[in-house]
């Protein structure tokens, strides 16, 4: 077994790097940026020892380009960055979505906009993960809240990217990335690799009618493979003036995620059954939120927590259901990004407690806010 396993005391970023190795990642291209640098630093040492390749690129545009190329050469690939680097990657996020390239992009979020607070946590990039590149497409974004999950969700990110042939974002924050905790890493993890279409298949962008996902094709098998960001037909060739082809392709890029949303989405519920106030949180904030829920319960307030593990696709049905019978309180380290999603689904304004400046909500602040709602 090539990844680290057993009981360890690890940093989140290193657990993420080990998760990548466990998932079968053998190519990493990146450009160091706080607070994500340890992912690259660790993989620079580790990947060559497991037969992989690490490249430090000239910038983040080069980094995402390199991992897209690596995946089309048949190797699972990842990059890691933070806000400013994430912005630079956006053009090729769209290229990966359009060409259905399975890649994993780790964003250890810091405070923006621009270079902002380099060493401080935030979750101001979550809408950028969903809508950052131009045009219509869909992605998957995950939000870990522990070092253990930095490992597990990195594995999951690879598996989802391979299953749906889509860029998957691990949207962590500085706290979870830099935090150290005890973890139990399994010796074996379940991995999935996008199945290949047969050699020389002509319509290798033809989707499976049920999942809407085409089989993968890679370079170097002796046949032409054409991969383009232009609107393309099922042979991969440009068809840029054909409204039908374009509509069909772009609808499918979105529908392959939407149709499979219930299979993709993971959430964690605490005391939701009888909750009159439901807190909605993700990432580091969800840890404070759970502590607050326990305190509120101790004070006789029927509070619950919906922790989003999957940010996108968004758990619309669940949020709609909860909104019918409970007051919703969204907690975020930004000025209201997931709040918009919650309001969209619940069709009402929700209570919102933001926190900026690089600090995490304290449980006490949350308790006070909820108590003041009455």
């Amino acid at each position, binding site marked *: 077994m090539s990844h680290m396993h057993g*009981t*360890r*005391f690890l940093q989140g970023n290193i657990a993420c790097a080990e998760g990548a190795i466990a998932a079968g990642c053998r190519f990493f291209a990146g450009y160091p940026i*706080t607070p994500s640098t340890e992912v690259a630093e660790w993989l620079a040492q580790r990947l060559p020892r497991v037969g992989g390749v690490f490249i430090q690129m000239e910038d983040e545009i080069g980094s995402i380009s390199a991992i897209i190329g690596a995946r089309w050469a048949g190797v699972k690939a990842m990059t890691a960055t933070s806000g400013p680097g994430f912005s630079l990657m956006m053009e090729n996020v769209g290229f990966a979505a359009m060409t259905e390239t399975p890649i994993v992009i780790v964003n250890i979020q810091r405070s923006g906009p621009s270079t902002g607070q*380099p*060493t401080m946590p935030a979750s101001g990039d979550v809408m950028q993960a969903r809508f950052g590149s131009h045009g219509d497409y869909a992605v998957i974004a995950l939000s870990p809240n522990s070092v253990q999950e930095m490992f597990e969700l990195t594995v999951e990110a690879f598996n989802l990217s391979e299953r749906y042939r889509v860029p998957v974002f691990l949207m962590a924050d500085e*706290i979870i990335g*830099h*935090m*150290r*905790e*005890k973890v139990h890493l399994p010796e074996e993890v379940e991995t999935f690799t996008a199945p290949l279409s047969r050699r020389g298949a002509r319509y290798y962008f033809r989707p499976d009618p049920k999942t809407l996902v085409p089989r993968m094709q890679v370079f170097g098998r002796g046949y032409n493979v054409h991969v383009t960001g232009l609107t393309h037909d099922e042979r991969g060739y440009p068809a840029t003036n054909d409204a039908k082809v374009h509509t069909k392709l772009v609808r499918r890029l979105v529908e392959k995620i939407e149709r499979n949303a219930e299979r993709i989405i993971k959430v964690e519920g605490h005391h939701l059954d009888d909750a009159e106030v439901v807190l909605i949180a993700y990432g*580091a904030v969800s*840890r*404070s939120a*759970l*502590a607050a829920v326990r305190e509120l319960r101790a004070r006789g307030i029927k509070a619950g927590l919906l922790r989003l593990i999957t940010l996108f696709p968004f758990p619309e049905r669940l949020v709609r259901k909860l909104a019918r019978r409970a007051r919703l309180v969204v907690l975020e380290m930004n000025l209201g990004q997931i709040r918009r999603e919650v309001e969209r689904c619940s069709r009402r304004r929700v209570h919102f407690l933001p926190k900026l400046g690089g600090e*995490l909500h*304290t*449980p006490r602040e949350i308790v006070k806010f909820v108590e003041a709602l009455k």
Partner: protein
Amino acid sequence: MRVEVRFSGFGGQGIVTAGIILARAASIHDGKQAVQTQSYGPEARGGASRSEVVISDEEILYPKVLRPDIFVVMSGEAMQKYLRDLKKGSVVIYDSSLIKTPPAKGIAYPVPATLLAKREVGKPIVANIILLGALTAITGVVSREAMEKAVLESVPKGTEEMNRKALHIGFAEGEKLVRAQPRSRCLSPGS
């Protein structure tokens, strides 16, 4: 019981390392839960550095330190900055070779760590390990065995003996202080 520990000083003094070693001692070798987080400026050296450890028998949710039970401090600037977060009973272990004024709050334990590191070990860099030894002896928040194992597995190969020596100097300093002022040995998360 939740015990909150804050280390603070300048970048380069081994503040973050000290936090990691304490958390490792508690979680891996004493079988408790521990979370270590850190806060630092964009500078590599010389900027303010802070490292925090929460130790508990139960699951740790909020990972940061708000009101430290134990404050280990290696610069006057950090002492000033975090004084207001201290509680009446907070244990303040400070490098008295760098900080001349004792804290206005909490229970003061002066340890001339940098001086001892230079004089007894010949390396000022092990001052943080001396402070960890003192912390262990004064508070009992982790066992000495756990701390020693955590120190030895965390330091660079070839420096084990030097660090073991530093740790034992810290144990002895801590014991001396406890004999003079025995009222803080109540911080074990198990108690």
